[in-house]
């Protein structure tokens, strides 16, 4: 195996060995959200005609879980290595910073997709979920998890303590995912909040992902995808610069 594939495989094994926490627990909590919200709100809210609220919720909750797990994967792996110091084994090897970047991002993508796929499979046993276009669904799943995987690298390298990482997760990632239109479409929001939502990259992930199922969205999926690609390029550029200059990891 070459160096890149080894690192990628090691990162996969790292979460798979504790798959109960890293894949099944997020699946379970998403399914619980779904049960509770649908039980409480099913009769009262309808967002799209002919789509029950529960079914409307599914794609949003699925991608939210995918994004959170993609972020958690690269960030927790890196902070564990930098805190314990075992990241030096990767740094002592001839792996280039681009290979390191790609391996961590891909491992995040795989974990995100696994969680998403798991939730979809289980929910399909209980609900009928339309699927308009697998290609759109996949494109947004891929861009979303890749973007969060790259953000996770930045967070994992920047944070020096687990509390700092937890703070990022609780005060930035979590609110942004919740305020991205998982539980509503932003057309129902007052103009100020609508305007704010357009700045939130998570909004485009949720909106585009949902488009793949319902063929209905707040903005055009092409625009959403374009914005996400731009975000991904910008975040990747920053991440690659950090890795290249050895920010915090090569003293």
């Amino acid at each position, binding site marked *: *195996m*070459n*160096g890149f*594939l*080894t*690192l990628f*495989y*090691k990162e996969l*094994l*790292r979460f798979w*060995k*504790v798959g109960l926490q890293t894949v099944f627990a997020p699946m379970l909590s998403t399914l619980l959200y779904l049960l509770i919200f649908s039980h409480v709100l099913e009769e009262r809210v309808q967002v799209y005609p002919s789509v029950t609220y529960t079914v409307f919720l599914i794609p949003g909750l699925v991608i939210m879980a995918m994004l959170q797990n993609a972020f958690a994967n690269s960030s927790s792996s890196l902070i564990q*290595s930098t805190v*314990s*110091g*075992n990241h*030096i*084994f*990767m*740094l*002592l*090897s*001839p*792996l*280039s910073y681009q290979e390191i970047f790609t391996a961590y991002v891909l491992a995040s993508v795989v974990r995100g997709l696994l969680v998403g796929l798991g939730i979809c499979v289980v929910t399909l046993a209980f609900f009928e979920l339309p699927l308009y276009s697998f290609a759109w669904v996949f494109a947004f799943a891929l861009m979303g998890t890749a973007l969060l995987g790259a953000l996770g690298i930045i967070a994992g390298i920047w944070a020096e303590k687990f509390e700092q990482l937890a703070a990022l997760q609780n005060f930035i990632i979590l609110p942004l995912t919740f305020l991205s239109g998982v539980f509503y479409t932003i057309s129902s929001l007052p103009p100020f909040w609508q305007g704010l939502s357009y700045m939130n990259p998570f909004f485009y992930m949720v909106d585009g992902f949902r488009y793949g199922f319902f063929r209905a969205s707040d903005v055009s999926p092409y625009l959403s995808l374009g914005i996400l690609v731009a975000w991904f390029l910008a975040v990747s550029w920053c991440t690659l610069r950090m890795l290249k200059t*050895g920010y915090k990891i*090569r*003293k």
Partner: protein
Amino acid sequence: MIPAIEVRQVHKRFGTLHALYGIDLEINAGEFFALLGPNGAGKTTLINIIAGLALANSGSVRVMGHDVVSGYREARRMLGVVPQELVFDPFFTVRETLVFQSGYFGMKRNNDWIDEIIHHLDLADKADTNMRLLSGGMKRRVLVAQALVHKPQVIVLDEPTAGVDVELRQALWRFIKQLNRNGHTIVLTTHYLEEAEALCNRVAMLKNGSIIVLDSVRNLISNISGLRIRLRLSPDTLPTALQLLTINHDQGSYILAIEGYSQLENVMTALHAAQIQILDMQILQPDLEEVFVKLMHGTENLESASV
């Protein structure tokens, strides 16, 4: 011949601390070399720069002719580093750790070699044990194994025997001596000067980020001027003329510093004249420790004198 390691005018600052102050060092292929110096001298920092774990503020480093920054892939393939800290990945077993490390270097079909180092470092019955469950000494062996997994030409060990029991220390040195005989260049830092003396051809002594001495062990020891003699006397006292020479007095024995064998005669005469009887006399051989202590104190005095 291309030097195994070539350090040119390396400076390293941590904020206002000037941790390395213009280091120049050349280590030849096949040498067994020791980097000595008190805590905080900059040994680990220098090793980190050679390994690419830290970046120098200026200057350059080559490993087997490859620049560690612009030619990092080749340089790192040539270099195996045993870090000072006992670091490990708690997710994996010993064998997994070694297989991954080998994979990072793109080694193909390396299992025979991995088995061989597991065997040589006496890790065979722990090969499938999780790293978390190993004792400190065992973790140290895995670190050594990890450094060797890609068959590097140059092996750097940062205090490999700190906190390691005597048995393992000896086993480790046998193994490393074997590697050196097979042509590998060995660079180590250690606090045990007798180890450096027994194993190394040349040593560099580092202090406050500068190399203050760079020489063969033999030259260093033979250049120590003068002799030390230990005397047990009856009565346990020295004539005033000899008190100036005393460097130590305890448990009924004196250690005197003299310039050479000719001065020995004067000491005898003075003792005889004062009617002091010599119960026992030993001439002490100088060792690296003495060189070390002398040099470290010597420069301290120089510094305080120049203030």
